[in-house]
């Protein structure tokens, strides 16, 4: 089921830029044909080629987007779709390695990833749409926000394990 959904999603993602390609349709069409084929290859075990398939889909989108005067409005959906496609392919390969207890967990996980990806993809769109503040106060807030983001990253990077635990297999 996950493989079939992944192939269908791959075809849809390849077709979206193709519809808006205009005069670039022959070139984009070739890429659009190749990308789902690579996704299929990944589903049949060549997981290492999946980044190339996702990259081609992103490239196809970027080319069509650049060729147009106005940006494609489906960008958040396309970004979220790429992530869900990748998750579906990896899930297919994991399930192919062996049966799994509780298939409902996997489904819930994919739905959650899709929702979060969609939300994350809409953040840049909203950010672009909002007029940026200016002035000293805005710069202070921006610097403060940067420090908080960097600090949080540093804390995450230096995260230590809780004392008294000895993780591992024994």
């Amino acid at each position: 089921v996950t493989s079939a959904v992944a192939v269908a999603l791959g075809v849809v993602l390849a077709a979206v830029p193709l519809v808006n390609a205009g005069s670039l349709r022959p070139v984009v069409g070739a890429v659009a044909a190749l990308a789902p084929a690579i996704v299929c290859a990944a589903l049949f075990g060549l997981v290492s080629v999946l980044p190339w398939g996702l990259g081609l889909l992103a490239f196809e989108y970027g080319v069509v987007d650049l060729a147009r005067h106005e940006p494609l409005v489906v960008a958040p959906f396309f970004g979220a779709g790429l992530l869900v496609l990748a998750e579906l392919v990896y899930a297919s390969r994991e399930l192919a390695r062996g049966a799994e207890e509780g298939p409902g967990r996997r489904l819930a996980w994919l739905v959650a990833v899709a929702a979060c990806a969609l939300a994350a993809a809409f953040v840049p769109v909203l950010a672009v749409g909002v007029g940026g503040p200016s002035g000293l106060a805005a710069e202070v807030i921006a610097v403060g926000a940067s420090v908080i983001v960097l600090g949080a990253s540093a804390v995450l990077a230096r995260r230590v394990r809780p004392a008294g635990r000895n993780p591992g297999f024994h």
Partner: protein
Amino acid sequence: VIRSALPKLPCYAALAAGALIAAVTLGRPELVSLAAPFALFLAVSLARVPAHDVALELRLDRERAIEGDELELSLGLSSASGVERLELRPRFPFGVEPIGVPVPTLALPPGGEHELDVAFRCRRWGAYGLGALEVRAFDRFGIVVDEATVEPALTLRVYPRAERLQRLVRPLTTQPFAGNQVSRAKGDGIEFADVRSFAPGDRVRRINWRVSARRQGLHVNESHPERNTDVVLFLDTFAEARRADESTLDRAVRAASTLADAYLETRNRVGLVDFGGIVRWLRPASGLAQDYRIVEALLETEVAFSYVWKKTDVLPPRTLPPQSLVLALTPLLDERGLDALLDLRGRGFDLAIVEVSPLGYVDLPRDAAGRLALRLWPLWRSALRYRYEQLGVPVVEWREGEPIAAAIEEVRSFRRYARQVRV
């Protein structure tokens, strides 16, 4: 435990970075929408990489089994930290094969426990280390994996399955101790042997009154006494012919176990000589303990490659008692084994050879030279058998699929009709 990144991590990182760079260089902010889901996924997943803590407990329902038995390996799993996805791949040694469905991927909640039973079949005799496992614990996001290999911690001894033998090869001479073998000599016993004239010292109860009345003189019955015998099982382990799942040695060990069982049941003394790259021996003894000793020794039997030319003089003298019956189980493949058997016959032992035929283990050659060699090989083996038979040694070909009882019966029939040669 080895922690490594899964292919998903570099894949997502490359996509996020590529889309972000494209957005900045091309000045198209909508491309950030392509990067944002991947970047968020990586940020959250890397922040939540867990430290897996898994405890494994392995149990075996029995430590001893017989070939063909089906057993269960129980895996007790517990985790204080919890594992989102746990893959277990039990590794079974050659001779033990898993049956049923493969082990499913598990999810262990924090503090959770799980019990798994893995069924397997003992296909071949031997002493096996069980419990080897490949354990892989994945995080929730599938970007890192903790891998560990658990070494075998349990020992399983699989004994050869013994066949039923109706009759055994009778020795030419028996030993002086009481047993179940009817001796060829005359003495006190149950089996009637002959009638002879009365001699001073004969017991009155042995007088055959009917014959005495007819012959007008006292005659007594003579009988064969029941004695035991010394049997030495001689296992030639210099070489074997092997297919993927079976070899001549496997069959020889099964036959040796069957013969040891049968001879010990009839109160004989049985010894074992494992004559090959490594020479092992067990002095003849009787009883249940000796049966266990022999079977345990047989489990260690293997073909050890060696260039050393060994003769039977490396064996301690008490391993081969005088007048013992030597039953050799050999594929007749190595010159050293052939030479040792001739040497035993030369030393006057009562020798019988069961040839564990290697012919069934040879693939049909495709080239003409190979086919010619395959035709010549059985002829050469026939000549070899004839050489032993000329010395009064029965050589019986025990083919694959035949019961050992058939080969034993053939040895008996050869010994019944063949002329015994004194060498």
